[in-house]
């Protein structure tokens, strides 16, 4: 058997009920991922498994607020906002399950091309991804996922720190590279090139 389980092999004999039964040194596709029935949340980056920790209360509070402001702004508009757990599949060519090796669960995402949405989540890049930092887990957000979002052309990547009360926005430039904003904090408002007229008041976001 090759190290990738093909879609045809997705049947009961391939179901995995415990994360401990997975060899983390191997490479997996979305087809394999669909066979994982355990409760632990994981992400796939270029076929490698990254475990997700349970988010903290401040993380969830801020996630809730930002999604509320986005949801409120997007009423009667075409873009939609989704909150984790929500699978985003990043495909390089074929959209077949066994050809997809990167599957992420951004804390929040805004998707404007609704054709990318299906019953299992989103296939292709969202327009905006928001990640809320968690001490101890930032290498994945700021390094691995940063590279995926840039490479796959997510137009804006927002990085929010609940502990420092900061907001940083990466915007894709004409060459397809991320340009960082300054680090915004309390007392400031941030805008988005994707959502004209949207304004996020950081005092509201970080208010206790």
């Amino acid at each position, binding site marked *: 058997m090759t190290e990738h389980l093909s879609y045809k092999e997705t049947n009961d004999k391939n179901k995995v009920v415990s994360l401990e039964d997975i060899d983390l040194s191997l490479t997996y596709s979305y087809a394999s991922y669909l066979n994982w029935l355990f409760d632990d949340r994981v992400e796939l980056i270029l076929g490698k498994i990254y475990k997700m920790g349970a988010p903290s209360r401040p993380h969830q509070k801020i996630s809730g607020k930002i999604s509320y402001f986005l949801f409120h702004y997007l009423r009667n508009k075409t873009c939609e906002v989704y909150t984790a757990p929500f699978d985003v599949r990043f495909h390089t060519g074929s959209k077949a399950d066994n050809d997809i090796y990167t599957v992420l669960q951004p804390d929040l995402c805004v998707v404007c091309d609704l054709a990318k949405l299906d019953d299992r989540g989103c296939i292709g890049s969202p327009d905006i991804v928001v990640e809320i*930092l968690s*001490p101890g887990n*930032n*290498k994945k957000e*700021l*390094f691995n996922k*940063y590279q995926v979002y840039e490479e796959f052309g997510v137009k804006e990547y927002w*990085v929010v*720190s609940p*502990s*420092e*009360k*900061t907001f*940083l926005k*990466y915007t894709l430039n004409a060459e397809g590279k*991320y340009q*960082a*904003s*300054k*680090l*915004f*904090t*309390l*007392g*400031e408002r941030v805008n988005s090139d994707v959502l004209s007229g949207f304004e996020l008041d950081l005092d509201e976001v970080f208010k206790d």
Partner: protein
Amino acid sequence: MSGPYHNLNEKVLSLEDIDLSLTYSYANYLTWLFDDRVELIEGKVFKMSPAPSPLHQEVSASISYSLYHYLKNKSCKVYYAPFDVRFPKESLADKCIYTVLQPDICVICDTSNIDDRGCIGAPDIVIEILSPGNNIKELLNKYNIYEEFEVKEYWVVSAMEKTFLKYTLDSIGKYQPSRLFTLGEKVYSEILPGFELDLDEVFNG
């Protein structure tokens, strides 16, 4: 800006005796004999956080050490807080200086700016380590000062999130942010050729 408060004959022994709604100069600041650390930004008094946390101090020490080690036998010098940096607009006279900051760490290459009381004029690099609850001052007020006075690089470090961001002054005097660096990465400075800061050592060292 309202006129500065000038009573330089009286020493002030308690921070509570200062009217925080008024505007003060470095000359006033020199008469403040209390232990509380404060900074002046355009004449306004900003209290400094309660004593920095052990984590803040560990990161500060690690970065200072790397800089100190690199700068041995070179002309730039590294200083760490408490160390007063005066930002004069025109006159260098004490009563004409309204901004006095204590950066966590600074690198000064023009050593003629250094006198017995600290540094007068912009350092080449300023490093601030964030403290939860105190970041408006670092990221808004002091950011504006460092950019206006042309500190060439402003490094912002989060000990909690283990992140490093570097602002570099561009050709029109505006700060350009780097990306947010984190563990597993090394960062460099245009001012210090060959210097390399290993963030694994800074945050896990």
